[in-house]
């Protein structure tokens, strides 16, 4: 009995590591040489066709080219300047064109008076005109707001400062020459906010899809103007869900709120 117990235990203890190695081998990419113990060579192995690379003294990763000429980064990355709101604009449709009074083609959940947008940014939400009504969230029909970040499966969306609208509208960096410019909005302080094309599969594209909105170049009147993260702005044609006007977006719930 004693011997049987000891033998059983020893078998279990000896087999276990091999089971783990077998798992490693099963998940290893081809050509890797499964089961090789880690750490022996410091992890660095030059590929055959490439020149042998110098390993950093003391181990670790070799990013000498990226770190050699640069001072140590501060604890927090300095924020880049605001996304070039005063960027010179190519031929733009007259953003300050006077507006004819038009009847509202769609319900106005935001309660904004008719007249559309003239391309001039209204006062900030905090300084709403006296005649304005409280902001109203416009609920998209195809998305039921759940808990925060429910649209992102509960994962908080993290803005990336170097991307268009913090990445909300897509990956296009503002400096990208290939970024499709979609008109602009002139703010009350005469600053121009350039609008860029929303990239497919971006959170912003999901928002537009939920509201069944189609992006159009900013500038003409009677558009839906949505201000996004990082001083971003896009314009869409109004529809039966969203009336012309100015809106802020709430990325936590992926909804727009009238200003």
């Amino acid at each position: 009995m004693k011997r049987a117990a000891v033998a059983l235990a020893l078998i279990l203890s000896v087999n276990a590591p091999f089971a783990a190695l077998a798992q490693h081998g099963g998940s290893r990419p081809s050509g890797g040489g499964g089961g090789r113990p880690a750490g022996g060579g410091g992890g660095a192995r030059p590929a055959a066709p490439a020149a042998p690379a110098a390993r950093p003294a003391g181990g670790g990763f070799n990013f000498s080219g990226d770190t050699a000429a640069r001072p140590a980064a501060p604890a927090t990355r300095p924020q880049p300047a605001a996304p070039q709101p005063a960027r010179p604009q190519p031929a733009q449709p007259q953003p300050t064109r006077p507006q004819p009074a038009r009847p509202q083609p769609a319900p106005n959940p935001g309660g904004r008076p008719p007249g559309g947008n003239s391309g001039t940014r209204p006062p900030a939400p905090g300084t709403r005109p006296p005649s304005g009504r409280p902001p109203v969230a416009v609920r998209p029909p195809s998305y039921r707001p759940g808990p925060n970040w429910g649209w992102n499966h509960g994962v908080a969306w993290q803005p990336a400062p170097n991307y268009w609208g913090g990445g909300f509208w897509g990956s296009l960096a503002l400096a990208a020459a290939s970024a499709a410019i979609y008109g602009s909005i002139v703010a009350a302080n005469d600053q121009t906010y350039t609008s860029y094309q929303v990239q497919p599969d971006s959170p912003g594209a999901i928002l537009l899809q939920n509201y069944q909105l189609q992006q159009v170049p900013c500038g003409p009147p009677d558009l839906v103007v949505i201000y996004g993260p990082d001083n971003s702005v896009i314009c869409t044609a109004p529809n039966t869900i969203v009336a012309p006007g100015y809106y802020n977006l709430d990325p936590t719930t992926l909804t727009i709120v009238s200003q």
Partner: protein
Amino acid sequence: MSRSWTLALAALILGATFTARPASAMGILRVQQRDGSIQVYRNVTIRIVRAKAMVVTSPDHVGALIISNAACSYVGDLLRCLLDDVKLRQHGATKELDVDDGTLYVNETDGELHLPLSSQGVKPHGVVMAYHTEHGTFVSLHGTIDGAAK
């Protein structure tokens, strides 16, 4: 009698320790310098820290790539993050790596998924990443998440 059961218990605990250890640290990080030289780091550890950052640790535990502040969205069931903030922490110093462009894909499901418009698969709880720094370094990573830390 007691000695034999002590041995058996110790062996069982030892065995359980090995069996409980997941297949980990199997990530492969490839760094191609601007001059064309290449380092391939096998058995790197991939961990998610506080659900906010992904940390890739070198096999010798000296260096760590910290990937944070990415803009993430879902492509089907695949989490896709546009990289922006990557830091290198090693030898007691933390340095920023200026990412020019890059994407991180994370498969949080228990089944294999494919990258959009690609035949490349991402294993369950797998990670595929590629980015390019402003200096000209090209970095790629694939592996599976080895764990998460609060």
